[in-house]
């Protein structure tokens, strides 16, 4: 039986896809219901071990979702094995939460979406809100019986952009750069005495608007209400909610958070995350780059 949406928070009802969010209170009440699986996904690989929501599983973005060799995600067989070993079925309602305003939780949700897992939600406010509210944490290991999750073909096209597609999209599809201001302007990789972050050039992709990802989050790590998000992405940046858009950051994780905002909270029809992001673009030979605070223009010669 499908698990109903969390209708307790009037803020959720304003979003385009309100069923994609649940509150901490909802998780406290339903987190261990049959058909519900709670997953913690953090930046810090040890945080789950220090204490997690009772019954929650751990999925790590590095060691579980990314391949160790090729820069790519699991394939259908590997994803089926991951889910089966965790005891998750294709019909389960997955609720992801994590540290840093759900930054990594949103990334995990995005990867689950690549495999078309139907019902994946975020717990609004993430780990921080749960902890701040003084809710229960446990170090008890969660064990679930192994399941037989089906092998499904990963479908990148709707929500993932590759570099050639971004090049092609320049001047056609709006881009959102969700990194910090110094990364956008190109200042960060020139900081004296600090080791480079493995990127040869600083700056941003021409035409990309700068909207650091965390602007979508409120002080308490929850998502800002719809009107506040519209004020940023539509009024300030000028995105058209009927158009497609591509978001990127450094390795595709912060932009997964913005992807969630545009796709599920504001209901843009086609939002893609360019997960190659700056670590690919800033190392590529002969791709156009703009440094400084201006968005810059799409190279006319390319058209």
């Amino acid at each position, binding site marked *: 039986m499908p698990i109903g949406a969390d209708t307790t928070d009037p803020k959720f009802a304003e979003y385009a896809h309100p069923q994609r969010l649940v509150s901490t209170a909802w998780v406290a009440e339903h987190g261990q219901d049959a058909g519900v699986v709670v997953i913690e996904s953090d930046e810090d*690989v040890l945080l789950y071990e220090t204490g997690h929501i009772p019954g929650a599983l751990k999925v790590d973005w590095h060691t579980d979702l990314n391949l160790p060799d090729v820069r790519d995600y699991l394939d259908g067989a590997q994803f089926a094995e991951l889910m089966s070993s965790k005891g998750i079925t294709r019909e389960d309602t997955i609720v992801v939460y994590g540290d840093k305003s759900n930054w990594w939780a949103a990334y995990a949700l995005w990867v689950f979406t690549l495999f078309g897992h139907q019902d994946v939600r975020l717990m609004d406010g993430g780990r921080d809100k749960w902890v701040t509210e003084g809710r229960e944490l446990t170090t008890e290991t969660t064990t679930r019986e192994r399941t037989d999750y089906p092998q499904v073909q990963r479908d990148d096209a709707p929500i993932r952009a590759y570099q050639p597609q971004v090049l092609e999209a320049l001047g056609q599809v709006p881009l959102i750069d969700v990194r910090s201001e110094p990364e956008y302007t190109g200042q960060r990789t020139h900081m004296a005495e600090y080791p480079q972050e493995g990127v040869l050039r600083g700056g941003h992709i021409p035409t990309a608007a700068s909207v650091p990802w965390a602007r979508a989050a409120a002080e308490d790590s929850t998502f800002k209400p719809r009107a506040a998000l519209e004020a940023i992405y539509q009024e300030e940046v000028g995105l058209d909610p009927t158009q497609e858009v591509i978001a990127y950051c450094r390795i595709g994780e912060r932009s997964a958070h913005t992807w969630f905002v545009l796709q599920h909270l504001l209901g843009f029809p086609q939002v893609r995350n360019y997960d190659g992001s700056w670590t690919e673009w800033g190392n590529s030979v002969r791709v156009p780059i703009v440094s400084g605070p201006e968005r810059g223009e799409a190279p006319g010669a390319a058209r």
Partner: protein
Amino acid sequence: MSAQDTTDLPASVAELVEDFHAVPQQDRLQLLLEFSRQLPALPERYGEHPEALEQVVECQSPLFLTVEWEDQAATGEDSTPVRLFFSAPMEAPTTRGFASILHEGLDGLTASQIAELPADLTERFALTQLVSPLRMRGMSAMLERIRRQVAQLPRTTD
């Protein structure tokens, strides 16, 4: 799993490397967690002056560190032991764990012992695949800064 060659390491560091290799892969994260809990708190004189510490910006979470000569001596020599101090929030257990390993292994080594540590030291703990290479960068950045700070400590001039 065979322990790595540790003959080029000071005894305190060699012992740590061997400890990490001695536990099975699935328990190694737990060992790192134990280290994170054991990171000593800053002495009061730094607790009141966090600006005296240098931030390691490569770490995913805020990590501050500083070094000084043993007994807070104003100057020292290559053979003088060095003391290390770290600060990282409880919500950053991995960062704290890395700092704690370095504290356990390096605190009290002489300036020249620290200078001579192999550049790949942080790769020796068999953690790289477990926590991912990207995260290990925070630990090597810490080591880099420790070394630089030790090199810049005022020397005794005769």
